[in-house]
């Protein structure tokens, strides 16, 4: 809503400054909490790689993680496409039941 002035610092400074300059009372604390929640959602290997990261690095890692998940969906769609073509028509039902029971 156009509350920002003409000159804004970038990067993680921008996150903190932008938040305190807004009048909508979202505290830096809340932002930090939300960012640590995102950190907890990263898989173990990524969390280990970044160690004690700044907010900006965490967001970057989160973006990288989301992109890798998108790529996995693409790859799995390709594999499913090939697998389905070779399946006979009775298999979907059996495999539906198996998957549901597994979870």
């Amino acid at each position: 809503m156009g509350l920002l002035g003409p000159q804004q610092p970038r990067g993680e400074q921008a996150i903190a400054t932008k938040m305190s300059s807004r009048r909508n009372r979202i505290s830096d604390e809340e932002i930090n909490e939300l960012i640590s929640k995102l950190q907890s959602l990263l898989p173990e290997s990524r969390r280990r790689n970044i160690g004690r990261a700044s907010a900006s690095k965490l967001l970057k890692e989160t973006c990288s993680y989301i992109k890798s998940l998108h790529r996995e969906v693409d790859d799995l769609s390709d594999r499913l496409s090939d697998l389905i073509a070779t399946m006979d028509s009775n298999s979907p039902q059996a495999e539906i039941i198996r998957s549901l029971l597994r979870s």
Partner: protein
Amino acid sequence: MNRKHRTKNPNNNKLMLAFHFLRALARINKSTSTVSSYQRSCIIKRAAYASMAHAAGPRRAWSRALLYRLRRGSSRLHALPAIRRTRSFSHKRVKVASPKLREPNQADVLRRLVPGGEAMELSSLLKETAHYIQCLSAQVWLMQNVVGSITS
């Protein structure tokens, strides 16, 4: 809002996901015998995102945005090019002289990755991102299981 009702039961969510996606897969299996493997793959991918969005329900901005894009038949489901923006402040940021000028603002990168994120302010964006990641990884888990059960 009744918070008790909204306690997330991850198993329920996974079952809903499985229900939507497997039903779509069964339908795709029957109806796509004549299309190319690549086309079927695109159909499956769209079914994956549709199941995610349906299982998440309309309460989330990202699921609403995804369903909107899917219904419009748009070819890009996420990472839209950052040309049309409702706010101008991101334009202003580009003109600022700063040592970090070349590094894109990570929050903006995130906005393009999370459906519906372009118009969000930061705290909503972070909340939506958390939920989106949880649902996306559940979808990946489901697809891996389906592949596993077909190939075993």
